[in-house]
């Protein structure tokens, strides 16, 4: 067999990185095909959340400004599912580390960013599938409707996807540090899940005690929910803080900031990561 050489030009290197990312993304899809239960979980979890919160909480909560609770709730669930993409990303990366697969990838002539980029893009595409399922479910079961223009609706989903992609990179970075899937779960779900509740996702912030209110007001999760509500034209509540008065801008800022910090950090960590 002829000995292969790494690409010499910048353009060839880019093509190389792209091809590697696609191969790695393809691996994620093959894994999902091998465990259909996992995929079903991704799709069923949002349905359960919609029904659970929509009808259990929905029967007890009335919005201060009026409006249908289930329409209020949907953007909250969209945000929660987007935020929790970090958990799956961290678990998957930590398992690859523990198995020594990351070592094998690193000993192969693969573009340095490709393993993590390929993974993250595949994770995002699976997340989008789950969002589509959730939206369908919201429309059919909860009577949710986006009331904005088609462009605004698209922008709403786009913003949620950007936020989800940022969260995937937080999870990826954490996954490179922990020893196994269980630790990865604890190191992400442990703080993320409470944080999604310390926001305006499920309840209006007006009822919160005064010491808790500022935290919820400035929680990026709240900005994401408010931005989605605004773009979908769903009922929301009064905004007391700057981020909630400018939710689209602050969500954009948060997502870009997270990506600007965690993508380079994760890629650097991957380059020096030692399995086991």
């Amino acid at each position: 067999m002829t000995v292969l050489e790494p690409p010499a030009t910048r353009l060839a290197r880019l093509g190389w990185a792209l091809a590697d990312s696609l191969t790695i993304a393809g691996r994620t899809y093959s894994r999902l095909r091998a465990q259909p239960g996992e995929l079903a979980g991704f799709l069923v979890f949002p349905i359960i959340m919609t029904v659970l919160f929509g009808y259990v909480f929905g029967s007890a909560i009335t919005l201060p400004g009026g409006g249908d609770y289930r329409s209020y709730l949907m953007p909250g669930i969209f945000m929660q599912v987007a935020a929790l993409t970090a958990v799956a990303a961290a678990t998957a990366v930590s398992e690859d580390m523990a198995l020594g697969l990351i070592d094998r990838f690193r000993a192969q002539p693969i573009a340095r960013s490709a393993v993590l980029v390929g993974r993250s893009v595949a994770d995002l595409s699976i997340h989008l599938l789950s969002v589509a399922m959730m939206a369908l479910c919201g429309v059919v079961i909860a009577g949710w409707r986006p009331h904005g223009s088609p462009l605004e609706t698209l922008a709403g989903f786009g913003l949620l996807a950007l936020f989800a992609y940022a969260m995937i990179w937080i999870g990826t970075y954490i996954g490179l540090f922990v020893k196994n899937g269980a630790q990865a779960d604890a190191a992400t779900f442990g703080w993320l899940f409470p944080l999604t509740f310390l926001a305006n996702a499920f309840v209006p912030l007006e009822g919160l005690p005064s010491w808790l209110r500022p935290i919820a007001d400035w929680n990026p999760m709240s900005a994401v929910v408010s931005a989605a509500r605004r773009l979908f034209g769903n009922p929301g509540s009064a905004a007391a803080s700057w981020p909630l008065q400018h939710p689209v801008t602050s969500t954009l800022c948060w997502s870009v900031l997270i990506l600007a910090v965690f993508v380079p950090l994760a890629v650097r960590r991957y380059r020096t990561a030692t399995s086991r």
Partner: protein
Amino acid sequence: MIYAEGLRRRYGAVDALKGVDLDVPQGTVCGLLGPNGAGKTTVVRILTTLLRPDGGTARVAGCDVVADADRLRYRIGLAGQHAAVDELLTGRRNLVMFGRLYHLPRRTARRRAGELLERFGLAEAADRPVKTYSGGMRRRLDLAASLIVAPPVLFLDEPTTGLDPRSRLALWDLLRELVSEGTTVLLTTQYLDEADHLADQIVVVDSGRVAASGSPSALKGKVGGGRVSIAFREAGDLSAGIEVVRGVLPGEPEIDRGERRLAVPVEDGAASLIKVATALDEVFLRLTEVTAA
């Protein structure tokens, strides 16, 4: 084919490698022998570009491990202690994926996967998920994955640890075949008999240093009829050390309490050295130095 000079590496406060030299000619097998924590894996990680050395230089297949890492990666294969393959995917899908990551065209990657599965006796299991494989099958798949581009240099980190004797012998046969085709192999092992069977050259590593090196027979001759001497940091360790040495070696140790040192006359220096180092390792003694002289 593999050349290293003065390799050093620290992990925090620990000096894992304190200057290791290696020279492995093409088509030969070098066995890195030593107890757990001796620095064997660190040497392999540096030579396979997974870890940067803090000092020293190394070249593999003509490529510098730091400056020329990507070219080097096309010329090596690495199989480790753990079978680094995707458990959920089939054996074939794993090999095709690794082939694609060497930037082989899809058809070439598929053809190569088929050839390797056939050669390593995995053709029948090729389309089953790896999680259904036995330990020996996984290790063979791992080895196949490291041979996709038919690399001229192969690194094996404890390739037979945890395998049953039959799978171990089968793996040895595969390795001999590869070497006869011209592949240069560096393998680490804790088993003297493995190094003895496979290696043209044995390098004994202990506490981050090369303690002895040479062909299996020369090494035995050189240190045959010699002494193993051990220096301890604490007086208490010496007493415990004497017990350990009495347990693993037939000779009666000569003891120098003032220098906290003991020496045992032995017939087979290399083997005894490994035995003692492993036994001491097991009782967690902080030994400062073990040498065969």
